[in-house]
């Protein structure tokens, strides 16, 4: 599904140059569930952001469905992104001014889709994620676990084949964390490819494969025993 070759990401300020990703080679197949682990500052989130095309790469190649997107314009990337990728963040990133339903609908708003179909898809996904009874609430009125369910709903409502989750359980207690992981597993079972950054080895166990990063390099890759 996606493949990175000799990929670099360098942050430059006037005086300091920080290499966040240092010659990464990384591949994900369709239907895979990949966990990315590593200590703080090793480049996990940077890798995920580049995979999700919300951050640019400095050097190297990135094939997404056989298309080298390195060097694409933001407009071009955004078109690919909205068709193919859903995002889940540690801090949920829900918009406070919008209701649960509207937050989820936001992911469809930029697709050319009639309003009736949007509403239907939103209702379906809210049912699936168990937040339908909260449709008219604002994010501030929900628990952390509920907020993350809404975020997951938003990530999958467009039926995107790839979900990127950046520490999706980081702000949750263990019970709610577990719930979210089960959600992700069931999505993966239904065929959605998932790449997840996590600090938690137990949550990484949900993945088929774990990639360990250290100082911008991929140091090990472990396959989970079937």
């Amino acid at each position, binding site marked *: 599904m996606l493949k990175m070759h000799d990929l670099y990401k360098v942050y430059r300020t006037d005086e300091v140059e920080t290499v966040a990703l240092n010659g990464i080679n990384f591949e994900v197949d369709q239907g895979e569930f990949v966990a990315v682990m590593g200590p703080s500052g090793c480049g996990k989130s940077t890798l995920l952001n580049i995979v999700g095309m*919300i951050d640019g790469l400095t050097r190297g190649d990135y094939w997404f469905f056989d298309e080298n997107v390195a060097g694409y314009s*933001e407009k071009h990337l*955004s078109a690919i992104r909205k068709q193919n990728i859903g995002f889940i963040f540690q801090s949920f*990133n829900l*918009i406070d*001014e*919008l209701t649960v339903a*509207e937050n989820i609908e936001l*992911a469809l708003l*930029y697709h050319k889709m009639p309003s009736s179909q949007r509403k239907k898809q939103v209702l379906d996904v809210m049912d699936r994620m168990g937040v339908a009874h909260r449709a008219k609430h604002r994010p501030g009125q929900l628990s952390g676990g509920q907020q993350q369910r809404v975020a997951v709903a938003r990530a999958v409502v467009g039926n995107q084949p790839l979900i990127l989750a950046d520490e999706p359980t980081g702000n949750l207690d263990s019970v709610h964390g577990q719930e979210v992981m089960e959600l992700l597993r069931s999505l993966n079972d239904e065929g959605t490819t998932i790449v997840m950054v996590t600090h938690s080895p137990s949550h990484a166990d949900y993945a088929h494969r774990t990639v360990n990063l250290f100082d911008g390099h991929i140091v090990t890759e472990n396959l989970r025993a079937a």
Partner: protein
Amino acid sequence: MFWNNLKIALRNLRKNKLFAFINIAGLALGLAIYVFGGLLVNYERTHDLFFENAHRTYTIGSIAAADLDVGVDRMGSTFSAVGPIVEAEVSDVELVARTISREMLITMGAESFYQQLRFADPELLQIFDFDYLHGDASALNDPSGILVTESTAMKYFGNTDVLGKVITMDNEFEFYISAVVRDIPQNSHFNSLFIMESDLEILAPIQALGRIRDYDMAGEWDNLSLGNMTYVMLPETLGQQWLQAQIDGIYERQVPEDKKEVIAGLFVKPLAEANLAIWDMLGLPVISVVSLLSLLVLLVACVNYTNLATAQSLGRSREVGMRKTMGAERGQLLTQFLVESLTITAIAMLVAIAMLELVIPLFNSSTGKVLTLDYLSTLPWLLATTIVVGLVAGAYPAWLITRASPIDALRDVARKGRKGSRVRAFMIGAQFTISAFMLSLVTVVFMQNEKVKESSYIFPRSEVYILGRMSPDEISGRLDTLRHELEALPNVDHVGYSSQVPYEQNNTQIDITMTPGDEAGKFRIHYLAMTPEFLDAYDIPVLAGRNLSRDVSNDERSDESEVVNVLVNELALEKMGITSPQDAVNQRFYDLDEENSLREMVIVGVVPTQNITGLFNTEKPWVYMYRAKHLRTGSVRITGGNMMDTIAAIEDTWDRVIPEYPIQGRFLDEVFDEVYNILKLLNGALAGFAGVALALALIGLFGLAAFMAAQRTREIGIRKVLGANSLQVARLLVWQFSKPVLWALVIALPLAYIASKTYLDFFAERIDAQVVILLASGLVAVLLAWGTVAGHAIRISRASPILALRYE
């Protein structure tokens, strides 16, 4: 998508109520001022358009000669001799008509009253299609016919069916009403109180003036009173430029050489602008200034909005990041933010319209204007204004917030960094430039007006009761009786008569020479006719020599003697080359004016130089002559006692001595206020604009300071943990806003200097401390800015550091 954007916009407003209020209130105020200014300017520039021929009717005005020194630039009027010349020489014009303004004692029904009348050529009724209730446009063809308005007929006869009713002028000449027309709408120059003292109520034929006052129908070259209008109606095919060329030719060929020393040219103006004559006259571009100021106020309001919206939008960086992550293109996000700003502008416009609906009736009732907010005709303009303001004000914040890449937006890089802070500082600077400019300008104008008022106190303004309209023969024959009777009243000290009183803007001048017949050495000197008591009435001392006297021969000018004794002021001595008042006594000079008969004037006394015409005029050389023929006004000096009782006693005395004519009394104060009120009006308007601009800038600064203080909460927490005290933190925040404000002063003050100098140049006596006043106003602007920011700064600097750190 649009509804979604609108929904978000409204929810954002609800969420940030303080900012929403500041944004909408500020923008509404700016829009209200702008729309009001626009309506006013349009109203003033589109008078008389309800007349069918307005678009092809022009007035001929006069440009005052530069060395005339009477404080006016351009007059909407011209000599009445010009009209007949245009008619005779320019065959292509369709119609020419004049009006001559003259004051008459009118007796209509049971009442007698003084009124300035317009005597008009019969063609006036061909040019202006009045709405006739009775009679028709031939009303002035009969030299005894007069036209009255509906309300005049109602007032004096109780109905409008008054054709043939008799009206008497000056107790002697009878006329009959030949037409009654509907009242002329207020937005006509005929009703401009700056041109005539009253609305158009009566029109009489010019021929009648020939009968009453021996008036030559060919017109005269003496009088430039504002009511002396000349109207020219052109065929549809010809325009203003063509007429101007013809009129220039007439000026060159036909205006007598000595009149070219009075007027430097003639100018043509469309009828729609005839009511603006007063501003042309003063040489102050008031209408353009109103346009400019209202636009500046709107600009301040827009900058306010932009600034607050920019600061506020930084808080929405994550939302933008999220939307981008989900595939929103920049164009879509720009649209979203612009819809928000258009929504706010539209709400502000509705508030502004509501404000105007309240203000316009008040304005109309206090000014006598009939300004209206006609939605049908102004809708396109209001819509366009809303859209332009919404887009312009919202463009920068929308551009700034949607600029970041998705990841930068999610990480809130813009908020954490200093992005846009320079632009915000620039915008604060721009706002304060405008408001400090206006504030300092208005202060200079105010101080100058105060100075004018202050220097007017050289005359006992509140103790002199002026009796007007004393020239008719029946009155002038009884002046001595009246004086004796009045001086016998308790509290009346002196009664003097004169051709004009202080502050009256008359500029009668005579040409004199120091040796007989010296044509080359002649110069002009202002002339005042008076009785000897005039000096006592105004406490004018005699510096050398003596006052004029009723008992010395030649002290009063008579047609029998070629010598007349006069008083002059010190400035006249200077002009004559006489060094001291003592040397002046018994010196002679010569009057060249009257039909070339030479008259010798002997200086018998010298008075100090006083600014008789006052206000904006320079001090002038004056000669004071006792000449009964020219006495028009009385000055009754009252000291002590109950003023109301004394006035009542004066009125009783008048009624006893001159029962045929009503008394026309007012205090000298009112004469002064007649012109001074125009200056006060200007200052008031300017102060209004300045006040709103400054208030907007301060509101904006308040909002921005609140926002930036919140933005810097974490930084402040860290600083406090590291040992900064409250004062240091407060200073930090105050300084952040001081820099742009100080820069603003550097730009605003020199501009205000130039603008206020234009105003001061209008006056002969100017305030000395212009620069000090400008600096002081600048300081006030800075102090106000500090005061506005300080509240936030102190509150946040006192908070516990851990609160500040927890904020993030």
